[in-house]
C-alpha cells in the first residue's frame, strides 16, 4: 500500500460521510482555534505589560518613602506616607553610589490644569534635568527643564503629547504659551515625544515641572515621592540596590535595615513578577481551551469507532484479500489524523482570525506566535494518533471470518 493509495482510501472514506466528517472536524477546529486565540491573547497582554514596564526606562531602581512591603504594595505609596526622602537624599545617592548612572528625584501629583478655555486633570511630575535620560523620555519640541530652572524654582512646564492635545490642539505649537496648574501660571517650554504607552504609567499624559517649583508652589512640602536611579549596567543592579540602601540608612541614622523608612524596587523584579502573573494567565486560558480540544478528540474517537463498526464487513474483505494488520491499522489511523489535521489547519486560521478580531474590536493586544502555530499542528496530529489509535487497533484486530459474517 503506497502513500497515494492511503490518501485515496482516506479521501473516499471521509467524503462518503461528509456531514459526519465535517461535524467531527468542527470539534477539533473549535479546540485548536480557541487554544490559538487564548494563547495569543495571553501572550499579547504579556508583551503589553512588559513593554509598559520597559518604557519606564531601563535598569531602573526606584526608591520610595515608607517601609519595605511586597511588590505591588509599594506603588500605592506616596502622599499619605512619611516624608522621609528629600532632594538631598537623591543628591547623596548620585554622589556616593558608584554604580549609578544617573539619579532623578521626583514629586508627582494630579492637578487640574487649564489653558485658554480648555482644561484637563493630569499628573504633574516635578523632577530634575536627569529625568529624560533615566526614564527614557525624549523631547519633541523645545527643551526639558534645566538645572538653572531648578535652582531658581522657575514656573516652566514640559507637556506630554496627550496633554498638549488636550489643552491646545494636535498640530499647535504650545511653546511660549502659558497654562495654569492649580491656578498658578506656568510657561510651556517643551513637548515630549509620544511613547505610545497605554494602560498604567502613560507618560504621554503628563506635565513635567522643576521639582523645586512643585515642592514650593504645588505640594507645599520638601518631600520627594520617588527617586529613580539608573544602574550603569543590568548585572550590577542588585549591588546598586545595596549601595543605595546603605547610603540612605546612614543618612537617616538607621542601623537596622529592617526598620528602613524607605524602600527600593528593582525594575527586573517588577518585570519578572508581572510576567509570572501573565504566564499563569496564559496557562489558565490555554488549559481551558485545551479541554475543548480533548472533547474534540473524543469526538474523533467516537466517530472512528462508529466507522469501524459500520465497515466491519469491508475490513473483513480487505483482510481476506491480503491486507495485513498494519495495513488496516494505518488506514484507520490515517483517517483519524487526516480529520484532526484538517481541523488543525482550519482551527489555526480561525484562531488567528479570532485573535485579530479581539485586537481589532476590543483593542486588546494579541500575538499569534509561530511556536503556538507549530504547537497546534503538532497537537492536532497527536490528537489524531491518540484518539485514532484505539479504533484503528480494533479494526486491525478483527477476525476476517467474523467480520465477513457480520451483518
Amino acid at each position, binding site marked *: *500500500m503506497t502513500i497515494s493509495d492511503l490518501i485515496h482510501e482516506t479521501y473516499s472514506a471521509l467524503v*462518503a460521510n461528509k456531514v459526519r466528517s465535517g461535524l467531527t472536524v468542527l470539534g477539533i477546529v473549535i479546540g485548536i482555534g480557541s487554544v490559538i486565540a487564548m494563547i495569543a491573547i495571553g501572550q499579547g497582554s504579556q508583551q503589553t505589560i512588559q513593554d509598559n514596564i520597559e518604557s519606564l526606562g531601563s535598569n531602573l531602581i526606584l526608591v520610595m518613602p515608607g517601609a519595605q512591603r511586597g511588590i505591588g504594595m509599594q506603588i500605592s505609596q506616596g502622599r499619605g506616607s512619611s516624608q522621609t526622602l528629600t532632594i538631598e537624599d537623591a543628591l547623596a545617592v548620585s554622589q556616593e553610589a558608584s554604580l549609578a548612572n544617573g539619579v532623578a528625584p521626583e514629586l508627582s501629583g494630579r492637578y487640574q490644569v487649564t489653558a485658554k478655555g480648555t482644561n484637563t486633570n493630569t499628573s504633574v511630575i516635578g523632577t530634575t534635568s536627569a529625568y529624560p535620560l533615566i526614564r527614557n523620555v525624549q523631547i519633541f519640541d523645545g527643551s526639558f527643564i534645566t538645572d538653572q530652572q531648578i535652582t531658581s524654582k522657575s514656573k516652566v512646564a514640559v507637556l506630554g503629547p496627550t496633554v498638549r492635545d488636550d489643552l491646545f490642539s494636535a498640530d499647535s505649537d504650545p511653546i511660549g504659551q502659558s497654562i495654569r496648574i492649580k491656578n498658578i501660571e506656568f510657561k510651556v517650554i517643551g513637548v515630549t515625544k509620544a511613547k505610545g504607552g497605554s494602560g498604567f504609567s502613560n507618560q504621554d499624559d503628563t506635565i513635567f515641572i522643576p521639582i523645586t517649583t512643585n515642592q514650593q508652589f504645588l505640594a507645599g512640602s520638601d518631600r520627594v515621592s520617588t527617586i529613580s536611579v539608573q544602574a550603569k549596567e543590568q548585572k550590577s543592579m542588585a549591588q546598586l540596590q545595596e549601595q543605595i540602601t546603605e547610603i540612605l540608612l546612614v543618612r537617616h541614622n538607621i542601623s537596622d535595615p529592617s526598620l528602613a523608612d524607605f524602600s527600593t524596587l528593582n525594575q527586573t523584579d517588577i518585570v519578572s513578577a508581572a510576567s509570572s502573573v501573565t504566564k499563569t494567565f496564559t496557562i489558565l486560558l490555554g488549559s481551558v481551551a485545551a479541554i475543548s480540544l480533548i472533547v474534540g478528540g473524543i469526538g474523533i474517537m467516537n466517530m472512528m469507532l462508529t466507522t469501524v463498526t459500520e465497515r466491519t464487513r469491508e475490513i473483513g474483505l480487505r483482510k481476506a*484479500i491480503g491486507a*495485513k494488520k498494519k495495513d488496516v491499522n494505518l488506514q484507520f489511523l490515517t483517517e483519524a489524523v487526516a480529520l484532526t489535521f484538517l481541523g488543525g489547519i482550519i482551527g489555526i486560521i480561525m484562531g488567528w482570525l479570532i485573535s485579530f478580531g479581539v485586537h481589532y474590536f476590543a483593542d486588546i493586544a494579541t500575538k499569534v506566535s509561530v511556536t503556538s502555530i507549530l504547537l497546534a499542528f503538532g497537537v492536532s496530529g497527536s490528537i489524531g494518533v491518540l484518539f485514532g489509535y484505539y479504533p484503528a487497533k480494533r479494526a486491525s484486530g478483527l477476525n476476517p471470518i467474523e467480520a465477513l459474517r457480520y451483518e
Partner: protein
Amino acid sequence: MIECKHISKIYKSPSVESGQSIETSALKDVSFKVANGEFVAIMGPSGSGKSTLMHILGALDTPSKGEYLLDGQNVSNLSDDDLADIRKNKIGFVFQSFNLLPRATALRNVTLPLVYSDTKKEEREKKAKEALLSSGLDEAHFNHLSNQLSGGQMQRVAIARALVNNPALILADEPTGNLDSKTGEIVLATFKKLNKIQGRTIILITHEKEVAQHANRIIHIKDGQIENSST
C-alpha cells in the same frame, strides 16, 4: 497442489448456562487432495462444515488438528500476517454476498487486491481490466459504482477481483446463493470457462446438487466428515 491430511476443527464457545465452554466439532479427520487445474465442488447440507473447510483452505483459519499443504507449503501453523500473505498471493475468494466496496467503481474493486500486493500503479488498471473481461463483465460497466450493478454483474466483479492477483486457487462459497437460477447459470458458466480455458484450480462450495454438478468432481461432506468422492 492442495492436500488435507486428517484435518479437524473444534470450535470452543462459552455456554450461556453452565459458564463452561462447549466444543463443537465442525470437521472430523478430513483428508483429500485436489490437483492443479481441477474444478471441484464440495457439497453437503447446511451445518455440515463446508464454510469451516473453506476458511481453512482459504488460509483464513487454521485447523485444530492435522495438516494443510498448499502448493507444498504447510499452512497449518502460520501467524496472522503470514496467512495474509498466503491469501494475497495464492488465493482468490468469491463470496455468496459479493462483498464489494459500495462506494467504489467496479474497476476500483478489482484493483483492491493489487493495492495490497504492491503492484505498480501502471500495471493495476491493465490487470484489472483483463480480469474483468475474462469474468465476462461488459466494458461499459467498468466505471459504474458497484452498488449500481445487478447481482450477476456484481458477482462477475467479485470473480474478477478473485482472479486479478493470478492466484493458484479460487475458492467460491455458495457463489450462486444470492442469484436467481438463470444468473447463477451464467456465473457457473464463467467458472467453467476459467477452469477450461485458463486452467484455473477452482473449489466451489454449495449445498445444491444442480450447482455442484457443474464441477468435474464432487466431494460430499456431512457432519464434518467426507463421505465419498465421485467424479
